[in-house]
């Protein structure tokens, strides 16, 4: 086993992600690589808007796999996440087959034909390997997490009436969390852990330029610097990478050549979206910009 040629390396994974439009940093590439090699789920945590969900999408694109997404929310239950019996159809079946015996009907209505597959079930039952994205797992309650355990460690689901359904192909599972509550130890134990943070200046610049290629380099650098400056303030909602990209596109549309005070104040609402934050940013960053652009003679 150890002698088997290594089909992929971390660098290749990184390359594949990059060609799918996702510039992964070293840890992200390594964890994605390990997840595929070891068949373990990835638990991605980090502040909002650093590309946690995007990582899953990129993995799907890079591996040419289908992406199955389960968006978590409070009160999400098995019927919405795993499977549900199609009782309307079951009722119809009972009413239609009037003369057949109960046993027969009973066996019949609890067959796969009457099963409504929900995302988790879909991912397990799929013929092709898929990427399963369980988004914002921290929004659900602990009971739901417990339910996931069987799925995540053995890639199987037990349906009382049908028995176990095991995965035929190994799905790549990505769980994301905004860290709004502590996840259970049991869940973490089954996952590889990846903490995504705001990228470093150079990498964020690359990302912005990848998504807004027409933006001149000097302007992109300026933009990222300003965004970092904004992030360093204690804001209610610091600007995400997606917002940097949006801002870059806005600047393109505005035909701005430099980020000076006017441009900034006009387009600030793209990156700052809270009233008190806007006041703070205008006060702190806006002033600095004026100084930087027109240095006192």
């Amino acid at each position, binding site marked *: 086993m150890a002698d088997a040629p290594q089909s992929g390396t971390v660098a290749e994974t990184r390359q594949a992600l990059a060609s799918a439009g996702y510039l992964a940093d070293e840890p992200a590439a390594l964890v994605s690589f390990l997840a595929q090699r070891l068949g373990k789920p990835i638990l991605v945590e980090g502040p909002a808007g650093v590309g946690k969900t995007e990582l899953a999408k990129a993995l799907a694109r890079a591996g040419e796999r289908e992406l199955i997404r389960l968006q978590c929310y409070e009160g999400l239950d098995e019927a919405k996440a795993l499977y549900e019996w199609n009782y309307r159809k079951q009722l119809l079946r009972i009413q239609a087959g009037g003369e057949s015996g109960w046993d027969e009907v009973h066996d019949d209505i609890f067959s796969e034909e009457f099963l409504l597959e929900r995302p988790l079930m879909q991912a397990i039952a799929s013929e092709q390997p898929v990427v399963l994205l369980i988004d914002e797992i921290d929004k659900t309650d602990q009971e739901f997490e417990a339910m996931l355990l069987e799925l995540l460690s053995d890639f199987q689901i037990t349906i009382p009436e049908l028995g176990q359904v095991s995965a035929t192909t190994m799905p790549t599972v990505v769980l994301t969390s905004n860290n709004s509550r*502590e996840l259970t130890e049991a869940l973490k134990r089954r996952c590889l852990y990846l903490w995504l943070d705001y990228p470093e200046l150079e990498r964020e610049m690359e990302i912005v330029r990848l998504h807004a290629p027409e933006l001149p380099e000097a302007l992109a650098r300026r933009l990222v610097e300003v965004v970092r400056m904004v992030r360093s303030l204690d804001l209610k909602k610091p600007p995400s990478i997606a917002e940097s990209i949006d801002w870059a596109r806005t600047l393109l549309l505005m035909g701005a050549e430099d980020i000076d005070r006017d441009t900034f104040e006009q387009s600030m609402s793209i990156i700052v979206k809270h009233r008190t934050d806007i006041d703070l940013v205008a006060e702190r960053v806006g002033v600095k910009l004026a100084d930087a652009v027109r240095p006192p003679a």
Partner: protein
Amino acid sequence: MPTPYGPRPEAGPPGLAPKLLGFCEELRSEGVAVGTSEILDAFAALDEVPWTSQEDFREALAATIAKSQEDRRVFELLFERWFFRAAEAEAVERGIGEEGQRYEGGERLDIDELREQVRQAIVAGDDGEMRDLARLAIAAFGRQGEGSGVVGVDVQRIRRTLELSAGAQQAQDGAGELPPIDRDQLNRFERHLRRELERDLIERTETLPPSRPLAELDRALPTSPTQDLAAVHRAVSQMKRRLATLGHEQRGRRRGRTVDVRRTMRASLETGGVPMHLRYRPKRPRRPEIYVLCDVSTSVTSASVFFLSVLHALHDSFRKLRSFVFIERISEVTEVFEHERDFREIAKRISSEGGVADVSGYTDYGRVWLEFLTEISDDLDPRSTVIVLGDARTNGREPHAEVFAQVAERAGRLFWLNPEPRLYWNYGDSVMAAYERHCDGAFECWTTRHLENFVNIVAGGVPASD
């Protein structure tokens, strides 16, 4: 496949497996929950990555072992120490040194030239280059005979000699601006410096410095105001998010629900009019009105930084929150928190204009209750929660417990957070017992864990287990 009995013997060069296990053992002793399954995962992961790259090696270990940001921080600190020490211990044991070649060129190098090179390496962010230059710098520095023998001091001296500081700088000859240095990059260079200095020290003394448990150094909350504010803030910012979502969690399905007749009837249509699935009304979370009273006198100096940051965090999370600080008299600081988001600024404004500049500087709890009661007794109702942060040391003055009882009676709930261990309560001038009788709960509180426990209770949950 790894066997259930532990790592395969051929899992790597001899000696690594025990080293890794030792590392995990050390992590455990720092309170990181490393299970056997994690260790097995770590070994499986190491099968997949090239060990020659330190980065890959570390990340692979981190991804399998450190499963939260807090764990990751401990992991980073220990990884440096453990694997660095492991290499050094081996070297000391076998008597290997890097004499002669290590500081090649260090003696000849001009300090200005070195300065320029270091700057370039830092801006470029090349780790290997930085490391080599760190060695050169240490050698050049040592030649000047200024080594103090204390690593931390030397790092700062070298940094100053090289005139490195974050941000843009004017070149000395006035030839325009030098490329700005990123703070992170500079920190990286300092880490290299520190490492090389430690390595040097070990080589000279041929012993390893004693390892201190991190818990004492690094993870306890500041006990004196001179300690880093950022540490408190980091801890509290984590909690901030928890607090913000705590209310929501309770909204899920719980016992003691009421049936929503309309939705049940509607759902029954799916089952032919038979109400097979009951629908419940969602439970509305309690929207607490919170009053916080915070002691800022000298007897709680050590805790007041912590308390103020708690106040800060609370303000971000609860809309209906009024806060007060007191020493001898009470004064409301809700405004300050609402208009200022920067914690340092808040601390400054409270001390300068909080209106607590008292004559004696000694806490007068009795007077505080009287004032609190007259000022806001009309606003207190059964929905309000009062939280007192203080040590209940009255300096021998009248405690006015009966007034406190009135406050407790009007408010729905009253909690007391005491920065002293329970053992010290009621010793000396502490009158905790007199007040505790009227509280819905009194807690020791000087770490974030205590605080989280308390927060869970306020939000209606159960206390987290240790």
